């Protein structure tokens, strides 16, 4: 037994099944996807190699460009609106004396619901005839707003729903970081006469910067990946107003049966996500020093 465990090949033997599965379900599909991206495969007939045609077409495709822009809107919204809100809410909850557990659970609740449930739920909230928001508007004698059918409102409506779903998750992350800060730092500042706002802005926020960075990075990745909520709530409609890269890809590949083109789109999405997160890592995160209490 002792000698067997010294033999490196034994270890290899143990990891081999996992590596085989990894190859089968991750590496192999990824390589074939890259290959399909260069073909005009429609799922049924023979596939011909078409070179970079799919990629060129993708960037010529006005609808796809529109979906990239929508993705960028979502990205901006989550980084510039959602993250500050998350930090504010976390700060508020962290200084609550009573029922902190209750608040934590409440804000976290939406992120354990499935996206389909949330999509349908909010679909009712936005409904022009019987929806909650429009009932309130009508009670004040206002015209109903066609949230999910109006080009101007559809994306905003989805952004709000998406934010509602995911903010709680990030709040809990940041809350954990805030609560981990030693109390004496805060108390020292209090004795020096710093107000609550000052303490939050000059003490707490700098101390939780690393976790805020993580949240921003997860938000970027999430914004580029978002698709389920779009498919459930609008399916990319009305007239492409809420199409994001991934929903456009799903429609092209599955609905059109244009698997070659769809795969090419998925490679582009992958490249986008990779470049953006890498940029963020290199430009922002690396420059920051480690926080020490």
């Amino acid at each position, binding site marked *: 037994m002792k000698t067997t465990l010294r033999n490196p090949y034994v270890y290899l033997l143990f990891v081999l099944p996992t590596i085989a599965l990894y190859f089968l379900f991750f590496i192999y599909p990824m390589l074939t996807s890259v290959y399909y991206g260069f073909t005009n495969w429609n*799922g*049924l*007939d023979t596939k011909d190699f078409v070179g970079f045609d799919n990629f060129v077409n993708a960037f010529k495709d006005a*609808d796809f460009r529109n979906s990239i822009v929508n993705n960028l809107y979502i990205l901006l919204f989550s980084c510039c609106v959602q993250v500050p809100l998350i930090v504010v809410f976390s700060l508020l909850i962290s200084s609550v004396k009573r029922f902190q557990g209750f608040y934590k659970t409440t804000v976290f609740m939406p992120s354990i619901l499935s996206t389909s449930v949330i999509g349908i739920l909010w679909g009712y909230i936005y409904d*022009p005839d019987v929806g909650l928001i429009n009932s309130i508007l009508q009670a004040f004698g206002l015209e*109903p707003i*066609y*949230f*999910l*059918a*109006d*080009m101007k409102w559809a994306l905003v409506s989805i952004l709000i729903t998406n934010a509602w779903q995911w903010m709680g998750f990030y709040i809990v992350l940041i809350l954990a970081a805030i609560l981990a800060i030693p109390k004496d730092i805060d108390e020292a500042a209090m004795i020096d006469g710093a107000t609550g706002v000052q303490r939050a802005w000059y003490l707490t926020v700098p101390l939780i910067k690393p976790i805020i960075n993580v949240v921003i990075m997860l938000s970027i990745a999430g914004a580029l990946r978002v698709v389920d909520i779009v498919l459930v709530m*609008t*399916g990319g*409609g*009305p*007239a*492409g*107003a809420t199409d994001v890269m991934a929903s456009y890809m799903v429609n092209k590949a*599955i*609905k*059109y*049966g*244009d*698997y070659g083109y769809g795969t090419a789109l998925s490679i582009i999405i992958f490249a986008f996500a990779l470049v953006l997160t890498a940029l963020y890592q290199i430009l922002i995160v690396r420059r920051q020093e480690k926080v020490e209490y």
Partner: protein
Amino acid sequence: MEKKLVSVLAVSVAMTAFLAACGNGNDNEGSSASPSASESPSASPSASAPASESASPEKVENFTVSLRHIQIGDAQKFRKAILDDVVKQTEADVPGLKIELDGIEDNVNRFTKLPAEMAAGNPPKIFDVFGGAGDTQKYAKAGRMLDLTPILDELGLKDKFLNGVLDPFSVDGKVYGLPIGGNTEGIFYNTDLFAKYNLNPPTTWDDLIKAADTLKQKGVTPFAVGSKGAWVPNMLVNTFIGRIAGENTNAGFITGASKWNSPDVVAAYQLFADWEKKGYFTKGELGKEYGDMLNDFVAGKAGMMFDGSWRSSAFKNDAVGAAIAGKVAFVSLPAIPNGKGDQTSVNANYGEGYGFSADLNDNELKAVKAFIKNMYSDEMQLRGLLEDGVLPSMQLSDESIAKVTDPIVKQVLDVLKNAGTTFPHFDSVVQSKVYTETETQLQKLIANKATPQQVGDAIQKVQDAENAAAAK
């Protein structure tokens, strides 16, 4: 802590075993577990259980055949009842057979699920399918669908189908699918509302426009529509094209004989855009489903709707539209002034039916034959007509047709009888990429993001590419 871990492990092991057992039960035999409980929540409970028990005497090999249908929801209950009876009869005919029903919403099946299954090569054994270049013909060319020609010969069915209805389901003279029935698309209108506002039935263009304008003024939506799925407004566009550009236009797109950006077709889109601008359609239509359209119409929020004749069964006394039963009438779109086509022509589709997987063993083939025999019979065709208002795809005697009592179905039959000629819906003609483009572009037109000319140009671009690819 340790105890907890042990119990968690135990539970998970138990779960795994339980799930594995379930999986086996479904795969191998239908007789062991509960045969009927799992599927078709909307079906009548008596549908399949007794049949499958009596149909398995000693020593027959039990096997299951999957059947994908789209008869879900309350509005489809009459068709579901017919299907259930056919399934029951087929199970009784073939010893050991258990048909597993799998009901899926029409559009999801046609545009998402079935294409994916076809790509993967594992479609259900029996499935609901549409005819045309985008559906049956595409799958048949890829070798995914069963050639039914020998079965039709064996059962003597080939000549029983109406003239030409098998064409969209045929490739090189071989038949790959069978249309279950037909329909025409026209205007349903609420006779109560029309009487209330003193309007003439919309049988002439002037009366139609006057009705629409008056309803609009009175705060009633002239036309209910749910454009979240653009196939719904596409029905009206299709008839506009047939009437304005001529009844051969729709069929000519794939041959290049007609073009989407020709002035006539653009004029059809222009007319639609004009109606859109005049506010003839439901507000917020891009967020409304097909079902919402019926609901709005039934609730009296809209005076008319342009829909397929299959909707007639919704206005029976015991159906979803019971609230306005007896207050609904059906007419074809009136003659459009300056239209180039035959202004009595109407759209007629025999586009939807059943197809069968090419990958069948002997037993399954037997089941398929029995299913065809039972489904495509005079009896079921007549039941479809009488109970559900589906126009028969097979020849029925005059006295059978005379049995129709439903007033709307009678009006539908009249519309077809008075039609000089018929034209197909372009969705059963053009390639699926082109069809999807028509939906995308129409939504843009509705959202006022594209002009009729831009719509025509964009669709024609895809049509050209697809025609070139098909010619290769």
